[in-house]
């Protein structure tokens, strides 16, 4: 088990390292930040001066060595746009993204899992049709467009919720629903499928026959054993959401990591792009690792292997 853990950990560190290297060269391929950062009517000499000050005129190899040396120590340099620590900016935006991701996932789990269970325990019922319809639609709908439609209906026409920004629970409702929708669809479908598989296994019949109510049987016995694929799905999506829901944060002007990433990319804010990319890949890799480990907690058979 320890060897397995160390091996997985090593792989994860390696993957993040490779992403850093790729990102370093990729952002430099996208163009010259000096031209974008300096005001439009700056002279060529001023642009050159900025380039020298930022160190972008040195050979890539030198810049890369310096970048790696600092990155190892957790220093990603200063954002060109904000003139402050790139990593600090991410940490500052993290609570907003975390809040949105947790809310979105909660919405998806609280609606999707019960709906999937209802569908599986009453096949071919109205609930089943509803669950399948919801999962089909939720997966086919473009989330950012749902966000726009919600804004048109709930904010512009009805004036019920704030259009954008982050100001208490009311402003969280639309981004949460929009972000959670895709996961909700997949989760409903998957819950239904795994529950259908589990429901006619012997231990479920035993649980029924010893007189447990349907709630206890479905939620404790059946769901507990069907949980592994659901946990994987939730984990992977949590990783992507934390890495920044770029589109949805942009639609609702949600002040999170995703919007920061989009701004950094469009402004060619190299240090910030590198820091965000590092953060996003770190989150994805960590969540994948945590998901693998969660299997052991949920299923003793995996733990013994």
């Amino acid at each position, binding site marked *: 088990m320890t060897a397995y853990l160390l091996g997985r950990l090593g*792989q994860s560190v*390696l*993957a*993040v390292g*490779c*992403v850093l290297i*790729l*990102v370093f060269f*990729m*952002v430099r*391929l*996208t*163009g010259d930040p000096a031209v974008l950062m300096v005001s439009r009517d700056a002279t060529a000499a001023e642009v050159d001066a900025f380039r020298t000050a930022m160190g972008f005129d040195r050979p890539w190899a030198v810049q890369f060595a310096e970048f790696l040396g600092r990155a190892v120590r957790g220093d990603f340099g200063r954002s060109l746009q904000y003139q402050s620590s790139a990593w600090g900016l991410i940490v500052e935006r993290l609570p907003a993204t975390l809040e949105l991701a947790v809310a979105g996932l909660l919405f998806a789990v609280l609606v999707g899992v019960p709906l999937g269970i209802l*569908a*599986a325990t009453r*096949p*071919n019922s109205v609930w*089943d049709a509803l669950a*399948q319809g919801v999962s*089909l*639609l939720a*997966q*086919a*709908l*473009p989330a*950012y*467009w*749902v966000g*726009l*439609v919600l*804004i*048109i209906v709930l904010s*512009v026409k009805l004036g019920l919720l704030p259009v954008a920004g982050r100001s208490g629970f009311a402003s969280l409702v639309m981004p949460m629903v929009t972000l959670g929708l895709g996961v909700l669809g997949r989760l409903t479908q998957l819950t*239904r499928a795994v529950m*259908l598989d589990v429901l*006619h296994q012997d231990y479920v019949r035993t649980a029924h026959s010893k007189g447990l109510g349907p709630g206890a049987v479905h939620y404790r016995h059946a769901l507990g054993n069907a949980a592994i694929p659901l946990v994987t799905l939730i984990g992977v999506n949590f990783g992507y959401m934390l*890495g*920044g829901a*770029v*589109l949805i944060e*942009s*639609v609702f002007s949600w002040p999170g990591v995703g919007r920061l*990433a*989009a701004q950094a*990319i*469009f402004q060619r804010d190299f240090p910030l*792009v590198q820091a*965000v*990319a590092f953060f*996003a*890949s770190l989150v*994805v*890799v960590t969540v994948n690792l945590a998901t693998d480990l969660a299997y052991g907690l949920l299923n003793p058979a995996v733990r013994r292997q």
Partner: protein
Amino acid sequence: MTTGRRRGRRPIALRVAVGTSLVLGLVALALLASLVAPHPPNAQDLGRSQQPPAWLADGAWRNPLGTDQLGRDVLSRLIHGTRVSLIVGAGGVALALSLGLCVGLVAGYARGWVEELTMRLCDVQLALPYLLFVVAVIGVLGPSLANVVLVFGVADFPLFARMARGEVLRLQAAAFVEAAVATGSSQLRIVTRHVLPNMAAVLAVVSAFEMAAMILYEAGVGFLGLSVPPSVPSWGNMLADGRNYLTTSWWIATFPGLAILTATLGINLMGDWLRGR
């Protein structure tokens, strides 16, 4: 209670029919766009900008779904936009599938360090922020339809490579492949006659779902202004335009979304059907 009922399988014919007709309808629209569309997609008429759809108070049947901020006909742009979405979906999947198949076959057959290296590289690719990859490639190569197809194909191939490798490992252990080896078939024959045909079903299902996903992504990056040039009528570009006029002209952003929904729903329904077979 029969197994079929207990497993909750519903008659699937209706879904296939709906899915297939949606997809065929869109393909027909894409092919016949110039004939079907009432106006040229980029024809501007600033005197008739932001006209509402025909059934609303100020609408006219000249522009059934209204006009955008430059007076361009929303319906015509929608019809022409079908092309971009379908080309990106089909082209991106074709590229990802062929790249992934090559890498996956090599990894599955070579084993050892080649397999280890290619699979780890796939992991890296999958951990790479998607948007950054799109921006970097489009930034270097310039925004064009071909480049968008290229980005999506390359970004998505690790998924296919992993699946192909998994299938190779599974099939190598299958009795009919062992039999073919024992009777002296060449490796090439085994790959083309036994391995590829047997992984086709799995890859077809994944291809369908990925095609739908790519259409969603294309519109998403188009919405951020990172897909085809703004002059090209595409659903993503229309969404980006409409976003700035949500309060005054809801129809500019609403209809492209419905078009995307139609395409992804149709393809997903067909994918479901393929998976069930």
